[in-house]
């Protein structure tokens, strides 16, 4: 049971940690209205919340990939004092309470905000739209992708890329054919993390985007609204959220293994 580097006493904190994390989930599963699950989930508001969540999370995850992979490259490979500062700035949304993130977005992109005011004059208003949900999700999820990818890039080093360049590959060709395949497992796990973070996003969405069925009321918002008035439905939706998250994490782990 014990091997090198695994002291016997470590099993106790391990058991406590597993209990702390697993038992509440088990409690949730136990109290769920399994018999009525189908009927509950078929309701309009369930469907709207679920589809909205999936659609917005998919959109924000795609944006995170488009912005995040090059960002991770820059942070991992650029030289200069400013890189450390940029990295710190980027990590801030990760540790910021989501409500604060929502406030930040509101004061910047809201109708009377720094950027929002000029945008409103041009007829572009982001608040209360589905786009606002995507913005809020991207804001909180992007750092997760960048941080996990940057670590992998730094570990991988640039030797392979240098060899590829010497063979005549342009920087873009190297990125697509050498760098990305080499860090594919990290990209996949980072994407899964971002997706999961976006899926669970609540505080920023509520503050910045509002809550309207089918437009901005994502799954977490729906669950929060229903937790007192219709506990059964809230539990049913919570199970769905749990299931989707578990699926995403498992899929990412599996894909990461076959690639690596």
């Amino acid at each position, binding site marked *: 049971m014990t091997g090198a580097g695994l002291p016997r006493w470590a099993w106790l904190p391990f058991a406590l940690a597993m209990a702390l994390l697993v038992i509440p989930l088990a409690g949730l599963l136990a109290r769920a209205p399994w018999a009525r699950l189908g009927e509950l989930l078929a309701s309009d508001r369930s469907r709207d919340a679920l589809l909205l969540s999936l659609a917005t999370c998919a959109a924000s995850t795609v944006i995170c990939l488009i912005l995040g992979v090059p960002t991770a490259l820059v942070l991992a490979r650029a030289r200069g004092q400013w890189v450390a500062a940029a990295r710190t700035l980027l990590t801030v949304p990760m540790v910021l309470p989501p409500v604060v993130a929502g406030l930040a977005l509101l004061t910047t992109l809201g109708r009377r905000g720094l950027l929002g005011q000029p945008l409103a004059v041009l007829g572009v208003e982001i608040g209360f739209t589905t786009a606002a949900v995507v913005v809020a999700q991207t804001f909180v999820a992007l750092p997760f992708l960048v941080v996990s990818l940057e670590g992998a890039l730094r570990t991988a080093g640039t030797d392979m890329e240098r*060899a590829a*360049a010497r*063979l*005549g590959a342009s920087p873009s060709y190297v990125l697509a054919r050498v760098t990305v395949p080499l860090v594919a497992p990290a990209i996949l796990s980072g994407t899964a993390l971002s997706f999961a973070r976006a899926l669970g996003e609540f505080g920023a969405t509520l503050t910045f985007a509002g809550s309207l069925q089918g437009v901005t009321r994502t799954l977490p918002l729906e669950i929060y609204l229903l937790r007192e008035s219709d506990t059964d439905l809230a539990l049913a939706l919570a199970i769905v959220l749990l299931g989707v998250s578990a699926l995403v994490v498992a899929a990412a782990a599996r894909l990461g293994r076959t690639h690596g």
Partner: protein
Amino acid sequence: MGEAIRVRARHAARGLDVDVTVPEGSMLAVVGPNGAGKSSLLQLISGDLVPDDGEVTVHGRTLTGPDVHIPPHRRAVGYLEQRALLFPHLTVVDNVAFGLRARGRDRRAARARAAAELAAVGCADLAGSRPRELSGGQQQRVALARALATDPEVLLLDEPLAALDAGVAPELRRLLRTRLRGVTTVIATHDLLDVAALADRMVELTGGRVTAEGHVDDLCQRPASAFLAGFVGVNLLHGDTHGDARVWLAPTIAIAGAVDGDLPPGPARAVFAPAAVAVYRAATHGSPRNELPAVVVAVEDRWPVQRVTLAVAGQRIAADLTPASVRELALAPGDDVLAVVKATQVALHPG
């Protein structure tokens, strides 16, 4: 034979200041202590290093100059390092085809050429394997095929055999000799065997500067620096000669030897093998030999002989003695001894 490569450049941060030429179709060996600038020189040619000033020209085309620096991926320069750096996510044949695909060739043509290159290095049967399934020697063969598949104008080798097992290196060396005939190559190496087997000309770098250059035979038989002497595995003593076949190392110490050609008065070198050195505690009499006062510096355990380092007139030489002799003489660092060398076994050269 024209000039294939010309590097005349300076890089202050790396302490580099070189002027090196490589004739077309020949192989230049670059030797020198660690940190002397061997890799930097190669990187100047490949374009990975930008000099503070100077020029790098290949086949008359300026690759690096006052207002131009062509990046590595647009130079037709092949590179082979100690590590094969094969792409783990591609099969062997796709690895070899990589350069061609990157330059726009279609998959079929690229793979066909790759297969041919693999056959030329004896790895045709490995085409479908993954790099991690290959041994070190096989990986380097594939890396060579990959570099040659793009028909580079020039090939750069940075200690390519250094990471290979002793038994594997000789076959790789033979392969390089065959495959690279007629290809303009620069090889940085620590191994005399590479130099002897592969190179035509040789350049010694010390502290970022060229301290010796010439034909391999010349420099090896008549090493001009302590490093080269050590590299080749011979002893070297500097001194002055009055024109007789003797080199004076100190006012009272001289070493006599054989002269090949002219030995004018002035600075001169004496070269002899460690095996030619005998060590005695007291003076002996016999056929004309050199008896040089020496101090034991170190005794190294080697096999089958032990290497004894001696200080003679402020310079260092090595003597290879049998373990029995070492025990008999009871040699220890600091002992005063006599280093005895037959004059017939000492070669004297000017300079």
